[in-house]
């Protein structure tokens, strides 16, 4: 029996199983990558003891987290508290559903792929708020309030900046957007004159905010709110939240690479496509990490002001400008 002979639902199950496991594997090793990268920035060595060059460190960390005691505060709202990590994790994993990793290689290349990604990634706020509320902790509560503030404020710029490539490609389907950018380097949307670069910068800024990374990590803010919404979590529940955060980060990096950096376009034979895509996603990830480890955090009111007064009008104006350019180019036939 060949693979093609399997019923479609079984194919989907197998594909999503593989993607899920690859994502979880990637998350563990991306943490190592970030730690090594940060260590180099700070003139340190980073994890080095477990395995050669610390290569087994993520596995040791995972084992440690699994063995830790699972503490539930007596005053916590048990059901909400226990459910929150899962509610948080599911949307973070779901965002990989519509990403094609190469032509035809993905779980579901639906025709509203981008919309699905944006909608699902906005849903993680439910898990965040449940964690903050259910912990019955003042730090966590403040953090949950900040989370709602921030994610609502930054979803719109995030969506608007992600829609610029959609307009340029003329499709919401992820594989179409990637296909338009194939062929030459100059077809990548980041090299689209003016619009491409501006949209990329805005995309990175709003991604930082949506991922809760420094300088926008006011939800976690360990110097004032200790660890924010996850201050009461330990063991595997903490690991699930961490897994979700990094999965979201990797997902956003893939989205950035797909929207702006030409997805799997690159030299060499076609089967190297997924590798190029991965490298570009890691480039976006390291770019975000680089920002993270060189900035100080800004205050909640400044974050909101930046979003509503600067980023939102700017992305909206850029989106309108893109639409005008696209309409003009189609009518002029350029």
């Amino acid at each position, binding site marked *: 029996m060949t693979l093609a002979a399997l019923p479609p639902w079984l194919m989907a199950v197998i594909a999503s199983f593989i993607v899920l496991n690859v994502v979880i594997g990637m998350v563990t090793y991306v943490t190592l990558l970030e730690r090594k990268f*940060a260590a180099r*920035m*700070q*003139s*340190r060595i980073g994890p080095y003891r477990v395995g050669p060059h610390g290569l087994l460190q993520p596995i040791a960390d995972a084992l440690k987290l699994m063995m830790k005691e699972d503490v539930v505060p007596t005053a916590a709202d048990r059901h909400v508290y226990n459910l929150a990590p899962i509610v948080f994790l599911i949307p973070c994993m779901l965002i990989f559903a519509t990403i094609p990793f190469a032509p035809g290689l993905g779980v579901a290349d639906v025709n509203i792929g981008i919309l699905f990604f944006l909608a699902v990634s906005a849903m993680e706020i439910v898990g965040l708020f449940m964690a903050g509320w259910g912990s019955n902790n*003042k*730090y966590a*509560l*403040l953090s949950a*309030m*900040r989370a709602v503030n921030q994610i609502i404020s930054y979803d719109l710029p995030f969506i608007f900046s992600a829609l610029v490539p959609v307009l340029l490609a003329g499709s919401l389907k992820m594989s179409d957007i990637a296909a338009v950018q194939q062929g030459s380097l100059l077809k990548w949307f980041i090299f689209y004159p003016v619009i491409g670069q501006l949209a990329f910068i805005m995309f990175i800024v709003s991604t930082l905010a949506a991922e809760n990374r*420094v*300088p926008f*990590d*006011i939800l*976690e*803010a*360990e*110097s*004032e*709110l*200790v660890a924010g919404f996850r201050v009461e979590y330990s063991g595997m529940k903490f690991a699930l939240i961490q897994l979700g955060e990094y999965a979201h980060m990797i997902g956003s990096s893939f989205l950035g690479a797909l929207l702006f950096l030409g997805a799997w376009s690159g030299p060499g034979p076609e089967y190297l496509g997924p590798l190029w895509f991965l490298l570009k996603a890691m480039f976006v990830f390291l770019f975000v990490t680089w920002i*993270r*480890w*060189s*900035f*100080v*955090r*800004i*205050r*909640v*009111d*400044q974050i909101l002001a930046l979003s509503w007064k600067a980023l939102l009008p700017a992305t909206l104006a850029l989106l309108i400008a893109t639409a005008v350019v696209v309409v003009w180019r189609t009518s002029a036939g350029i």
Partner: protein
Amino acid sequence: MLDVNETTRVEMDWSGPERLQMNMGPQHPSAHGVFRAILGLQGETVVDVDAVIGYLHRCHEKLSETLTYAQYPSIASKTDYVAAMTSEFAYVMAAEEIGKFEVPRRAQYLRVIVAELQRIASHLLWLGTWCMDMGGALGGGATIFLYCIREREDILDLFEALVGARLLYGFFQVGGTRYDIPDGWIEKCRATIDRIDSRVGEYEQMLEDNAFFLARTQGVGVVSRELAQDVGIAGPLLRGSGVNFDLRKNVPYSSYADFEFTVPVETAGDCYARYKVRMVEFREASGIIRQALDKLPSGPISSRPALKSVAQIRIPKGEAYARVEGPRGEVGSYIISDGSAKPYRMKWRGASFSNLSILPHIIPGHKVADVVAIMGSVDPVFGEVDR
């Protein structure tokens, strides 16, 4: 800004619908030790603050009554463990004033060198921890912190070569210093100072060109000149509020009159002004060290014979107050002697303690995130606050 006078009231049992009472510390990542601030919040805005101290009390003043003048300098280190040399300095100066002991010029120069090295080390730790308060242990703040720690390590290496200890020294002795500098130390010291000077320039670039850093510090935690003088804060805080007062310049002690240096003064009174003052002090301190190394006289390091027993130093009846300019401001020591080998009574004046009393005046009206930025800019060391 909310009205300060109306909102500094502390209501522990208040449980109205709009206010949240939040405990920050004593176990908290940015408590700078064991500070406890009970914040009253309206949303994100702090409307009242109650500062609780005393979690690190170790009976230092009582302890000094049981230890002799030869023993206590190494314990004095533990009051302000970030700037251990400064506390020793104040203690031995008070004892010397009662006993009218001469201090040889070489010892005076050595004292100035270690005190200024200590100032650099202390400011490095302040810069690192303050940036970590604002930037997070998982962000750019940690990067600055690790850079600063790397430089501070070089100074601790110098101290280790000099004394054998890295944090608590016992370098000062009534009548002079306990140790002389080893061979090659001067060259090593010069190289370290030069390196730190250039690296401090890098930090300035990294921070001052960063719009987010400016947004977090400028206009935050403003201490007016009048408030600064009324509350009695000292050191970089006072100079950041426009008061030109530095004990090294205004009341020169030891050999500070021999050296050329300027006292930085900023008038804005916010966190950024305090940052600027300390950044200039880095340069001024290394300038003083260079001059002292150039002019270092030869001769004995103590006017008194080497110690053979702990009760060897006896001081006549009398009392004296000696004060030095520490990294955090005026550090004073008041000794009452009854003629024995131990003080009858000893009193510390800690700079951190009086600086901390500014917090309830400036924190209300700011956001929660500003509390840690202001706390960090005050630079308290709780060993010195609680003693």
